[in-house]
């Protein structure tokens, strides 16, 4: 069976122009520069990377909110890169998005009920009464109550607004939900609530997620497969287990090492990656990561490394993926016995209360 979503060689280049009257192109921002991946039915693919790596642009390209400069997008095996008009609208119903900022993505003048019903109105689904019933059902589904439909967004906290955003995306019963950093703006405790909710919904409704994030720790809980992006290109893609157990790209390793670990005993064990992400207007030649890579050699400055399969299900764009030294990543030893025991009691008490 073909995957639900398949993109290949996807690119988005923005021309940079100068001059007021006579404009000429002085450069190109290569926001997304030849990205390929697929999302299977019912699975979560996470796109991870630092700001400016092109992950959000990729999400918008997939939804056709912006037009790609090159590449193809296939949905259920059908090429949808150039679909227009009514066919596009039908497609939109099946791909929805949850945005990062729950404060900016809801219209403050619409009641929550109207906001959730809006996609159904746009797509001509049901009548007023059936939409109302659906809104109430969705509110319950995301852990809110039907009476919340009459309220306005400002009456809700960030976590509750993100639940509303999720309910709105689900109102038209999509197959694919693109989640653009859905929890990055939330407090940790609320992040956990929303991550749990999204996992529950996936299990119940068989959703596929394209999950955009910069936080590998959150991704570890959400994703089945992970694609690590840097400066508009995929550096490494693979099953979550393989990627965490045996990251083969130096950038993936640097991202993993940079996560602050809640264990003071591990303090200062890693040397952070130096430098900043280069401008996408001046992508370095050869391997685009070579300017920050601790293992870079002469070859890396000239030759672009292909994304190649290292082990089944894991592909890496690095010339030296096989010969890199052991990353020395050690996630163990985090929680003491006392802490583990109390966390278990906390969990048990929470379940009992619920």
């Amino acid at each position, binding site marked *: 069976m073909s995957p639900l979503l398949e993109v290949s060689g996807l690119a988005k280049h923005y021309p940079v122009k100068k001059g007021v009257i006579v404009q000429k192109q002085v450069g190109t921002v290569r926001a997304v520069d030849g990205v390929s991946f697929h999302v299977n039915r019912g699975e979560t693919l996470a796109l991870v990377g630092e700001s400016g790596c092109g992950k959000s642009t990729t999400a918008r390209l997939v939804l056709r909110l912006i037009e790609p400069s090159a590449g193809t997008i296939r949905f259920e095996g059908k090429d949808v890169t150039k679909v227009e008009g009514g066919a596009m609208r039908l497609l939109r119903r099946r791909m929805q998005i949850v945005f990062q900022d729950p404060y900016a993505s809801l219209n403050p003048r619409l009641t929550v009920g109207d906001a959730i019903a809006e996609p159904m109105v746009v797509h001509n689904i049901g009548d007023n009464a059936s939409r109302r019933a659906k809104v109430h059902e969705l509110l319950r589904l995301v852990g809110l109550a039907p009476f919340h439909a009459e309220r306005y967004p400002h009456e809700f906290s960030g976590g509750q607004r993100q639940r509303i955003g999720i309910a709105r995306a689900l109102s038209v019963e999509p197959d694919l939900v693109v989640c653009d950093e859905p929890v990055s703006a939330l407090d940790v405790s*609320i992040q*956990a609530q929303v991550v749990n909710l999204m996992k529950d919904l996936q299990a119940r409704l068989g959703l596929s997620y394209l999950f955009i994030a910069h936080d590998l720790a959150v991704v570890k809980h959400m994703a089945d497969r992970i694609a690590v992006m840097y400066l508009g290109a995929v550096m490494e893609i693979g099953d979550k287990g393989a990627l965490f157990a045996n990251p083969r790209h130096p950038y993936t390793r640097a991202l993993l090492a940079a996560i602050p670990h809640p264990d003071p005993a591990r303090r200062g064990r890693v040397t952070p990656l130096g430098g900043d992400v280069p401008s996408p207007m001046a992508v370095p030649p050869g391997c685009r990561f070579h300017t920050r890579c601790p293992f870079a050699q002469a070859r890396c400055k000239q030759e672009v490394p292909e994304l190649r399969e290292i082990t089944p299900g894991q592909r890496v764009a690095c010339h030296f993926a096989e010969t890199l030294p052991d990353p020395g990543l050690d996630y163990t030893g985090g929680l003491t016995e006392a802490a583990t025991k109390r966390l278990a009691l906390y969990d048990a008490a*929470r379940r009992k209360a619920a």
Partner: protein
Amino acid sequence: MQPDLLRIEGLRTVFKTSSGLVRAVDGIDLSVPRGKTLGIVGESGCGKSMLSLSIMRLVPPPGRTVEGRVLLEGRNLLDLSTAEMRQVRGGQIAMIFQEPMTSLNPVHSVGRQLTEAMHVHSPGLNASALKDKAIAALKRVRIPSPERRFDEYPHQLSGGMRQRVMIAMALACEPRLLIADEPTTALDVTVQAQILDLLRELQADTGMSIILITHDLGVVAEMADEVAVMYAGKVAERATARELFEDPQHPYTLGLLGSVPRLDEERERLLAIDGSVPPPFAFPEGCRFNPRCPFAIAPCRAELPPLREITPGHQAACIRAPVENALSLESAA
């Protein structure tokens, strides 16, 4: 042993609003040892930023600090005149914020903003001496080619660079205390690691103390020597960083720990804290965490629990701590 650099005693900051009296900081006692880092953790709305503004006497009206003392090397900052306080801010105490873009003036060059801060605190220096000093400050926060950066504008710098400029500015007058309010929240993880590394190094060089305000327990574990967990304007738990992570006592701390996705374990569901922080004009009766606490019993709803010592140097404001003892007593009864 030297006395603590900063002692906060019974600090209380309130806002009179139409919805009622908002108790943003509600009777806080804390101390910051010399050359060490105190981490203050909590969710948004727990009062941690208001606490730092109260220390700096920068609480926006209608807020007012109504009680308590803030002793910097024995001197109560709350008794100082406005002019004296201005000397303390940016002098002995400096502050950096979450969003370096909004804290820098976009229409002035980096160099001009840096020299301005230096000029205020050492008016004797001439322009070229100030420039040398500013470039040295940029070099110290490891900004590459500082001579070029001196003439650039904030929009030309990356987020990490801007935060470095803010740190350079804050350290220009060699403060004894740096208050860092979510200094890395807006940054990418790799840049966050660089900034934390830089702060640790600068602390080792200068011997300054740091108050680090964050919602991220991972950042606390990386940086802090001592930790105060705040909830709804009060301290819920206080301990050394080591103790807090090894022997967490307060249910709120447990909830925060459980919410952090960890790389060292396969867990299907994260241990979230149910509900959200109550608005400060509607704190619940009794322990403020009780509506969200899975261990809450009747007395928790009746009376505000005081901060009490559980083990030496480790305090928690919870009558149920340690929970395993409380629970086993109950099941025996």
